Every structure is written in C-alpha cells, then in structure tokens.
C-alpha cells in the first residue's frame, strides 16, 4: 500500500513539473508563484511533502480543491453518494443476470448456443456503444427512462433510482457476459465430475444436482474473476458516468484531469486503487470460506 501511494505521489506531484505554474499559468509573475509555492508547501523537500500527505491521509484530511473551493473530503463524499449506489446496483444486476443465464444455459441445452453467441458479441463490444443504444431507445425513442443527468439532493428515492437504471444496466450487462462465460465453463466441468455422477446415481434430477452440489464448487473461478472485474468495473464507471452525465467520482476524475486539480486527482486515484485492493482481499477471504482447499495455497 505504501508503495502504491509512493508511485501515485511521484507520478502526480513530481513528474508534471511545477504545480504552481500549472495553477497560475505561464504568464504569472515570480512573486505570486513564490507565494503559492510556500502556500502549497512545494518549497519543502520531496520526502517532507510525501510524509505530510501520508500524515494528512491518516488524519482523514484530504486537502483542499482550488477549483471547487471546498475540501476534497466533502467533494468526494458528495460524489460517492451517486457512485456507490451505481456500483452496488450494477453489481447486483450483474449477479442476477449472470446467475440466471448460467442456470438457463446449463439446464436447457438448446438455449445454450444462443446464450453463447449473445455472450460472445456482448464481450466484444465496448460498453459505451451499449450505452448509446440504451439512451436512444429507452431515453429518446420510447421516453420510458431519463436519458442522463441526476436529480437534486431533495428528489425522492424513486426518481433517483430511475436515473440510475440505465447506467447500471449498461455496466452490468458487459460484466455479466464475462462472468456467465466463466461460470458456465466451470459448471460444465463440475457436471462431468464423479460426485455429480454419484448424486445422479442417488436419483436426483439435473436441477437438484446443480442447485445442491455443482453450484457451490463452481463458484471458485467465478470469485477469482470477480476480483479482477472490479478494476474493469471502476474503468467502466468512469466512462459510463461521463456518458450519462452523472455527477459521480468518474466525472470528477476526468474533470480534474482537465483542470489539473492535483489534490483531487491524487486522493481519488488512491481511493480507486484502495478499492480494488480491498475488494480483492475480500474476494480471497470469501474464496477460502467457500472452498477450504484454497487454504493450502494461501501463503503462495
């Protein structure tokens, strides 16, 4: 974690050159530049700046956004109120879609090839293409759902939810296709193993065999891919929030790249990376719970 923070710090603070020039522009005079440098603590040696940043993070002080005029903490907190429901909603939808598609494909052999073709084509498409199709049909043509934007804080939960449906659906469909593919392969492999044969010999029908025996052991590679997918999900959130004009952390990130708001960038990127690491940790822990054989490989 320390090494991650070091890399982020070095790349953002040290490499782009003088932050004061970036903020004030090239035409700024020397005295104001000097004043800003002292204000930002840029005159101190590099190690001191880095230590100061870490110290501040531990004390939950994320600095101050020069552009928005509020503290980064408050800004990120506001934005997370949009992004966390979006991520959560798309994760849940993803699980539902993947689960039902997998079961359908395993139970009914003649649907399986249809589902395969569907998965294949969905994986191939970048998710923003899907987003445009959704906006066009649901938002503009049939006018069922809002095509983008996000209501105020005072708006009711229902209205907020309708604004999140299309983005989360777009995010989840791509993710679900990948998950389904892996889940289906793993389930297929499990269905040919000896214990399934035994269960069949006991007199269980296919549905019972899958639900009682094969499903649990097939979860293992799926969880493995879920950890990897959080990274894709976060990339997806950045793009999708920009298309649907949602005021989440993705739009904040892109905006602060353009305005060179280094304080926001530094902390947001750290937040993204910590999320990925944290979810990967959780996935590993769950994996051990589900399949005790993994305990042996823990100290790999």
């Amino acid at each position, binding site marked *: 974690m320390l090494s991650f923070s070091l890399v982020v710090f070095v790349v*953002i603070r040290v490499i782009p050159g003088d932050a004061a020039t970036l903020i004030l522009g090239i035409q700024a005079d020397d005295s104001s530049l000097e004043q800003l440098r002292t204000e930002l603590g840029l005159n101190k040696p590099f190690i001191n700046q880095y230590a100061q940043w870490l110290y501040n993070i531990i004390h939950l002080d994320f600095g101050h956004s020069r552009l928005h005029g509020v503290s980064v903490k408050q800004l990120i907190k506001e934005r997370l109120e949009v992004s966390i429901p979006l991520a959560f909603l798309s994760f849940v939808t993803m699980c539902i879609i993947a689960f039902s598609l997998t079961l359908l494909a395993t139970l009914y052999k003649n649907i399986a090839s249809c589902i395969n073709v569907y998965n294949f084509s969905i994986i191939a*498409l970048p998710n923003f293409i899907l987003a445009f199709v959704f906006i*066009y049909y649901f938002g503009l043509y049939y006018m069922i759902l809002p095509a983008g934007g996000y209501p105020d804080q005072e708006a009711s939960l229902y209205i907020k939810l309708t604004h999140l449906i299309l983005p989360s659906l777009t995010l989840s469909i791509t993710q679900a296709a990948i998950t389904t593919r892996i889940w289906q392969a793993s389930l297929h492999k499990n269905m040919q193993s000896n214990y399934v044969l035994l269960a069949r010999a006991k007199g269980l029908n296919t549905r019972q065999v899958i639900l009682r025996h094969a499903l649990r052991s097939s979860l293992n590679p799926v969880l493995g891919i879920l950890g990897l997918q959080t990274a894709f999900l976060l990339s997806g959130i*950045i793009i999708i929030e920009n298309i649907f004009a949602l005021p989440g952390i993705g739009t904040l990130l892109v905006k602060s790249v*353009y305005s060179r708001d280094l304080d926001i960038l530094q902390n947001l990127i750290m937040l993204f990376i910590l999320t990925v690491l944290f979810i990967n940790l959780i996935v590993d822990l769950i994996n051990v719970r589900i399949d005790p054989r993994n305990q042996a490989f823990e100290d790999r």
Partner: protein
Amino acid sequence: MPKTISRIAGCILFILITMSLVSLFYTPYPVHEINIHKRLNSISWMHWLGNDQYGRDILSLIMRGLLNSISVSVSALLLGSNIGIILGLFASLYAGGITFFIRRLSDFIFAFPSLIIAIMLSLWLGSGYLNSTLTISIFLIAVYIRFVSVAARNIWNEPYIQAAYLCGKNTWNILYDHILPSILPLIIVQSITLFSISIIIEASLSFIGLGFVSPQPSLGKMLYEGQTYFFMAPHIIFIPSIILGVFILAVQICGQELSSYFSKHYNIRLSD
C-alpha cells in the same frame, strides 16, 4: 464456431483493414474538409455515411480513424508483447528474487484500472498517440508476464526439457529452442484477443478525451465529439459504433478460429 461465420468475419476484417490502409493515399473527401452547409446531413449518395457536426465526410473520417486506432493498438501490442514475453520467460526461469519482483510488478499493474494509468500518464505526456500507446502497452505487459510465466513454468516440468539438459544444452539454449517455440501458438492466439482488447481501450481513452489530439480522427473520438449532437443526428454516433463493434467482433471471431486450429494441430502432434 461454424465455418461460414468465421469466413464472413475474415472477409469483413480484410475489407476494414484494406479500407484503413487505403486512407493513407485516398479518401472519398479530404479528411479535414469542413463543409458547413452539409452539417449533420444523413446518409446520401454524395456522402455514403453522412456528414458530422462540422460537415466532414464520415466515411473518410472512419477510414482514417480506423487506421489510427489500429496503428496505436499494433504498436502497443509490439511494445507490450516484447517486454512482457521477455520478463515472463525470466519469471519462469528462476525461483528467487527476480521472479518474485516480476510477479509483484504484474500484480501491481493489475491493481490500477487501465484508465487510471492513462490519466496519470496524461499528466506527464499530455494526451496523444504516445500516451495511448504507452498506457495500453503497460497494461499488456502485465497480461503477458502473467500468462507467459505460467505457461513456460508448465513446460519446464516436462521430461523433454530434462532430456535437453542431459544433452548438454544450457538454460538459455533451452529457453530459445524449446520453451519459446512451444508457447508460441498460445502467444499468437492471446495476442489476437489482446489486439481486440487494446482497440477497446484505445476507443475508451479517446472517448474520455485522453486519446488522439483534435485534428486526428479516431473512432472513439468521433463518438466523444458527436455526443452533443446525438439527439439531432443519431447517425453520427451509430455509424462509428457499428463499425467499431463489427471490427472488434471480427477480430475476436478470427482469434477463436485460430485457437481452434492450433488446438486441433496440437492434438494431432501430441497423439503421434
């Protein structure tokens, strides 16, 4: 995958790549020609795929944009695969500190979502050809390290490697003569899949405005710039999306076909 589908995919791929190459010396209209009277015009005989928000010919833009996307992906693939394969082979070689370091390096890169890498690099390099190429290749290096080291590790355990040792070959010779040829089919198949993925990443980068700089067209950038006009003229979004989607799909189908060809080939060889 039925034969006809993969043949169709191959034809489409061939046509699209030829189209993009032809754009080097011929496009129906000059790529940057602005014709404000024909702004947002739909499909017509004069302009086969319509005009965009500045009245530029979409067909010409797509031809050049496809070339740009392909050239970024190919150069990223060349850079990423060379470094990644060498590092991956090293990682399979020793069980000591270097391996640990290389493995950690690839884990380290995987923890950054690729768009985040792009954003960090764009602060440094500004957006453009170099930025997208470097971003994609950093991501690809991690992927190559991971799968090359695992595949090569499996082959080191084969008996014929020990036989080669007994013949008096040293480690480097074995690496070059035995390990590399036997993982080559895997590398080729993976590279095609990764090519389609890097096209997707390039499109996403241009889409959030971190890809090509303004006069240069790219498919993702056409979508990014056309977004505002989506309500008035849906075709300036849909046509580039369709081309992009069809291209990626065709690449993936060809990769699938190639992998089934190799696996067939290998089964025959193994049964001999």
